[in-house]
């Protein structure tokens, strides 16, 4: 016991698998880990890594196939009730009772957790102050914003101060300001109440906010350490490249195949490079310069670099990664020059609530254009209006020269659409999905055959063609969804939250394909709430509460916020600054 004293959680050899449709899926494989007392530990990995399963085992909601789990020195398998009486657990979709008010939700959880009446007023006051929900105690939970709901969920979990707090993806889909607030609350809990926290997230940038990180992928642990220890190893291996003669994408395509390159992504006109050994910028310049005026700067390593580095080391032999084949797209498409999408004073009202309050933007041919904003900012509504799925309440929309709401099938054949949760037929195989979607787009005979062959080959799905699409790994589902959206060679591609939850390697592959498409003249409109993803766009708008807060290239957006202290602000910093600026301006004087 003594050796466990410093730990709130000890797992030894935990394996858990699920039976689904005659096939066994291992969610956790021989997991052994320890979580230290009094710190914030991050459980980090893409969707499907096994984070939620692990959390549920710790909370006593699932029983592992084998292995030992001790939480606060109690065996969870033998006495889950005692564990549950001393931990706090906030599931991914926290169960707030929507028909209850903020206060009633707190009362319910205080009753369930057995908080004595006498202690409640003080605790409520603390929690409401911390979460800034005090003015809303009488509001029904369903009328709260996403960020407020999340904070209320946290408050409910905390009515009885737990020794050990489990948070399953608490920041998913939450706007950056609420996200920042949640982190502040978490650290206050650790400092003031001596709580230990285990928090899972798919956002790699959140790793750096944790004191300790457990990196998970496909049911295994890839490493556990302080976040900086992960990437300190990569010192002198990360660079930022700009070329005078080559566009970012060209440059990236050229270098990504060269030996010694671990990772290489386009950020606007610049390319971020990770190499397999420490080098000086001069060495990089001579290696990759190729006579083109290449300027190389050393860049500080990030957690994501480390993840990619580790992933490639662990899985290099298991899957084909970069680069995407050059002949991914055969011939340049698109006929129009100039603005392909025009949006003027677009409005959408639901009852007396304006989801979109008169926005304007234009997208040029071949551009990758982003709609960036938190859940509820109005980007999905805008998106649906553009696709002609939802009528506008006012304003003008033009997509490839027509309004899709009234235009016929011909105009719709110009667009490809990839829905948020990949609208694939889960019961059909990869091939059947392609056949079905190509036929509803009117492809027949030789052309259909040719396009299906193209899709399977260029998305590297030959070995999976007869697999049921519901059983595909997430990354392949996304590939298939993109293949389906491109099957009829559209000029314009709409992508709704295309990369949420997928692992960074699959994400890179995805953006490489999008870059090639854009080079070939396909216009891409993408919505995302991943702030970092904005960097992949040529231009973007930042949306909040149905309004556009800013518009331009990522560099233009960052420019006003560069300070001597923060020469390289993140997109998230920009977003928060814009919202704060906007709120101050709109406040009545």
């Amino acid at each position, binding site marked *: 016991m003594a050796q466990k004293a410093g730990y709130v959680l000890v797992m030894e050899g935990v394996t858990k698998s699920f039976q689904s449709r005659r096939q066994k899926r291992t969610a956790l494989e021989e997991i052994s880990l320890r979580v230290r007392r009094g710190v914030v530990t991050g459980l980090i990995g893409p969707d499907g890594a096994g984070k939620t399963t692990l959390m*549920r085992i710790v*909370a*006593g*909601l*699932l*029983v592992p196939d084998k292995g030992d789990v001790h939480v606060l020195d109690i065996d969870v398998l033998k*006495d*889950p*009730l*005692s564990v*549950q*009486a001393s*931990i706090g*657990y*906030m*599931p*991914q*979709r*926290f*169960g*707030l*009772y*929507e*028909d*209850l008010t903020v206060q*009633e939700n707190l*009362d*319910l*959880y*205080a*009753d*369930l*957790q*057995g908080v004595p009446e006498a202690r409640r007023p003080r605790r409520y006051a603390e929690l409401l102050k911390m979460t800034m929900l005090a003015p809303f105690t009488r509001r*029904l939970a369903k009328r709260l914003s996403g960020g407020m709901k999340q904070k209320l*969920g946290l408050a*409910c*979990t905390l009515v009885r101060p737990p020794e050990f707090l489990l948070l399953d993806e608490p920041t998913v889909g939450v706007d950056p300001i609420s996200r920042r607030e949640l982190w502040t609350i978490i650290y206050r809990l650790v400092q003031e109440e001596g709580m230990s926290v285990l928090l899972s997230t798919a956002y790699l940038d959140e790793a750096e906010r944790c004191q300790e990180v457990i990196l998970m992928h496909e049911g295994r642990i890839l490493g556990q350490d302080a976040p900086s220890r992960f990437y300190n190893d990569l010192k002198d291996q990360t660079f930022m490249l700009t070329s005078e003669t080559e566009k970012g994408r060209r440059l990236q395509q050229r270098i990504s195949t060269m030996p010694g390159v671990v990772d290489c992504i386009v950020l606007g006109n610049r390319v971020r490079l990770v190499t397999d050994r420490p080098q000086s910028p001069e060495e990089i310049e001579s290696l990759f310069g190729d006579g083109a005026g290449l300027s190389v700067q050393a860049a500080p390593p990030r957690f994501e670099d480390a993840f990619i580095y580790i992933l490639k080391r662990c899985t290099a032999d298991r899957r084909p990664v970069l680069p995407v084949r050059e002949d991914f797209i055969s011939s340049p498409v698109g006929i129009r020059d100039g603005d392909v999408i025009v949006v003027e004073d677009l409005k959408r009202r639901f009852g007396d609530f304006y989801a979109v309050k008169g926005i304007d933007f234009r997208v040029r041919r071949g551009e990758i254009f982003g709609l960036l904003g938190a859940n509820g900012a109005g980007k999905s509504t805008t998106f649906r209006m553009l696709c002609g799925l939802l009528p506008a309440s006012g304003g003008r929309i033009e997509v490839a020269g027509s309004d899709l709401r009234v235009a016929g099938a011909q105009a719709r054949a110009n667009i490809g659409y990839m829905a948020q949760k990949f609208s694939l037929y889960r019961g059909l195989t990869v091939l059947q999905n392609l056949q079905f979607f190509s036929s509803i787009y009117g492809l027949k005979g030789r052309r259909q055959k040719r396009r299906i062959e193209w899709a399977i080959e260029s998305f590297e799905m030959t070995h999976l063609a007869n697999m049921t699409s519901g059983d595909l790994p997430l990354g392949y589902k996304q590939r298939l969804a993109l293949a389906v959206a491109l099957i009829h060679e559209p000029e314009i591609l709409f992508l709704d939250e295309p990369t949420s939850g997928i692992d960074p390697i699959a994400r890179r592959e995805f953006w490489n394909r999008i870059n090639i498409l854009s080079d070939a003249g396909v216009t891409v409109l993408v919505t995302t709430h991943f702030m970092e993803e904005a960097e992949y766009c040529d231009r973007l708008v930042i949306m909040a509460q149905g309004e556009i807060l800013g518009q331009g290239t990522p560099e233009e957006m960052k420019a006003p916020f560069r300070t001597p202290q923060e020469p390289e602000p993140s997109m998230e910093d920009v977003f928060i600054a814009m919202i704060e600026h906007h709120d101050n301006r709109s406040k009545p004087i």
Partner: protein
Amino acid sequence: MNGQDLHRGKGSMRLKGLICKEGYQIIRDPSSIAIAFVLPIVLLFIFGYGVSLDAEYVPIAVVVEHQTRETSDFVAGLRHSRYFSPVIMTSIQEAERSLMKRDVDGIVWIRGNFGRQMLSTGNAPIGVIVNGVDANQARIIEGYMQGVWIKWIEQASIEGGRSLLIPVNVEHRIWFNAQMRSRNFLVPGLIAVIMTLIGAMLTAMVVAREWERGTMEALMVTPVNVREIILGKVIPYFVLGMGGMALSVIMAIWLFHVPLRGSLWVLFIGSSLFLLTALAMGLLISVMAKTQFVAGQIAMIVTFLPAFILSGFIFEIKSMPAAIQVLTYLIAARYFVDILQTVFLAGDVWPIVIYNSLALIVMSLFLFIVVKRHMKKRLE
């Protein structure tokens, strides 16, 4: 097991919290109120008014081959009966065509020699053809027709100063439902079927809703135990379900004029036992079904339909095949139908009430034990 004691001390506080929560939800979310109150109103209206096993104003063709004073007397008798609305036709062919087209449900064929036979023997046969597609209806028409016929002959005999020449004289006396209104036994039976649906739906749907919204997962990691989760659902929905029951009884008495001959407290106890059984069935469904849609479907198929068909509410159990009869002992509604029909139409007949109540107690205990066993604080 120190921790266990600690939990028990706070059990009542947790239960209170769960019940309050459920109360707020009932008030603010119309779906459970709709199940408890709107459903019985709608079903009672549809079945109470729409389904009646009595035949009234049945269209029949009367073929009179040779009109005489006797025949028009008989037709007048038919016309005055509220059971028939006769259509006079002159040939049997025409009448048969109408029967084929289902314009009429039966034919009364009065032959040409009716008057003569009547005068000479005092008894003349008439032909009655009944559409037997609906066997139940056919039997009823047949019976009524006989009634009208006997009445008329009686009348004619008295007028003619002759004694009645019908060989067997059956005297019917109907007990408990003197007017023979089928509604009087249909409505109590219907209440049993409705309560099956309400009870099972309420718990199955609200637990499924908690799974759908993710509140169940949050609930499960609190120190609450399975017993409290079950009680926290059963108590509020028992109260709500009894409200629905009270509404149904009020409708039965005031709207459908079904007599209530037994005592209210027997009715209350019988209903409570049955409602508990139905709520337990709902909980059992919710152990299996984690979405409201599936839970609703299962509740319909495994509780409502069997209750409808096998409870003896419309279809007499004694006339079912032996194997099916055995099966009906598993249908809780069967016992409740018995209790309700007895308490409404006959009074507190103790042997029946006690036997059926015991059956319900056994069933509900069994179901609650199964629910307690299978409802785990786990997600698999």
